[in-house]
């Protein structure tokens, strides 16, 4: 009885074992192709169309997927494994299938203003060595940064230039200049960013200058005046203040094919204004007219005696009225006749 029981149990165990083995071993006519790096298995076997049609499709597909997954898992177990905190971890080989990238390729950084200019002018970057020989410390040092060679911030003495104010602190001047350079660089960096973003670049406004010119001062005044909450609308004007040039208004033209009637009316209006501006009394014209009238009168007078003399026989009267010169002329006329 006991032996029978044991036999039975053993048979049962063997059966279970076979069942288990059947669960993890899958038979395929063609070997699957694996890309373990991507956890990918490709099944080249043709699908059993008959079974697919006869069986419940869902069940068929699920069992097929299960089998193939099993094969993939089996393959994974062949990889070298290690235990990390109660979990068995397999190291995957490099993926052999190339997948398209998820995101588009990042755009190259927009060139800065200097880079654009350098390209235009054909200026090439020259590589400089990183290390420079420092004469003072007698060793090779970096060109820039901490513990750099020929560090001019470590100068203990600065010669005062001949043109400089002797009471000026050259050290603080140097520090200030450096700070300004840094600030300017930062500003340019931000402007480059804004430019790359196609955003509106804020105007630089006014950069401090050593000796501001007349134009600079005018500009500064203009900027200061407009820097109120109401954009300078209520700001008083100085007696002889002029608006700075090239500010604000841009010239705008009428459309090429606009309203022809309106254009005509505008031109007629201009003509009307031009006409009304003409002086009513044209001095030149008036003088000319006067001269002409005088001329006409004079010539009439000159001709008068000549004609009369020719026409009638009243020479006696003429001779009485006029001087001898006139008479002579009259005679000449007679002689001609």
């Amino acid at each position, binding site marked *: 009885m006991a032996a029978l029981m044991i036999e039975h149990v053993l048979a049962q165990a063997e059966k279970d074992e076979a069942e288990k083995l059947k669960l993890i071993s899958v038979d395929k006519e063609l070997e699957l192709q694996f890309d373990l790096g991507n956890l990918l298995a490709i099944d080249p076997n043709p699908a059993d169309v008959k079974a697919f049609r006869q069986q419940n499709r869902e069940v068929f597909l699920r069992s097929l997927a299960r089998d193939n997954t099993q094969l993939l898992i089996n393959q994974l177990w062949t990889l070298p494994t290690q235990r990390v905190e109660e979990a068995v971890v397999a190291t995957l080989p490099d993926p052999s299938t190339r997948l398209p990238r998820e995101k588009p390729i990042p755009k190259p950084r927009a060139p800065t203003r200097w880079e654009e200019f350098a390209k235009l002018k054909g200026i090439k970057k020259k590589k400089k060595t990183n290390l420079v020989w420092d004469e003072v410390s007698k060793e090779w040092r970096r060109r820039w940064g901490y513990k750099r060679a020929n560090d001019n911030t470590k100068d203990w003495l600065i010669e005062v230039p001949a043109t400089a104010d002797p009471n000026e602190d050259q050290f603080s001047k140097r520090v200030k200049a450096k700070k300004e350079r840094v600030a300017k660089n930062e500003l340019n960096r931000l402007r480059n960013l804004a430019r790359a973003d196609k955003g509106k670049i804020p105007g630089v406004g006014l950069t401090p200058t050593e000796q501001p010119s007349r134009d600079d001062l005018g500009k500064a005044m203009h900027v200061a005046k407009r820097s109120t909450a109401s954009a300078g609308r209520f700001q008083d004007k100085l007696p002889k203040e002029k608006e700075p040039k090239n500010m604000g208004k841009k010239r705008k033209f*009428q*459309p*090429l094919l606009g309203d022809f009637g309106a*254009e005509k009316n505008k*031109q007629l209006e*201009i*003509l009307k204004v031009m006409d009304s501006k003409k002086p009513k009394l044209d001095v*030149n014209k008036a003088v*000319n007219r006067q001269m002409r009238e005088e001329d006409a009168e004079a010539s009439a007078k000159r001709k008068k005696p000549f004609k009369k003399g020719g026409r009638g026989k009243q020479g006696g009267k003429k001779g009485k009225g006029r001087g001898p010169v006139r008479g002579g002329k009259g005679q000449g006329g007679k002689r001609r006749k």
Partner: protein
Amino acid sequence: MRPLTDEETRTMFEKLSKYIGENIKLLVDRPDGTYCFRLHNDRVYYVSEKILKLATNIAREKLVSLGTCFGKFTKTQKFRLHITALDYLAPYAKYKVWVKPGAEQSFLYGNHVLKSGLGRITENTAQYQGVIVYSMADVPLGFGVAAKSTQECRRLDPMTIVVFHQADVGEYIRHEDTLT
């Protein structure tokens, strides 16, 4: 190509009014169709609306000319009349000068009109008045500026200049390549 600004229109009208006075109105306001002034390459063209609309199909740098060129704006924004405007100015001319047949050629070669070549002149012409120059057969030859008033012309010796030359139809040959 664009319409003239008010400023440009005024400068041009002031120049035109020296020759045709208030007759500019007849150029602006025409009963036979819509005509307008357009600026292209600093030159002012007098174009009918129809041709203007056709010309819009041509790219700016390819467009050489359209309508009638009246003149051009200099870089100092002054207006210079071109000889091509003569056809429109001659019918409306207020002050005319007729040149004797012998002096015609001299004028057409770009010389000033001398007293000896002066055939007739409109009465009442003031000094420095814009005038249209005609041949004795009433063919418009060009335009100029009266150097002397009509009155003064009478008592001049024959070699003095009466009309300063500005433009003449000889330019059609002399400046063939630049006239548009």
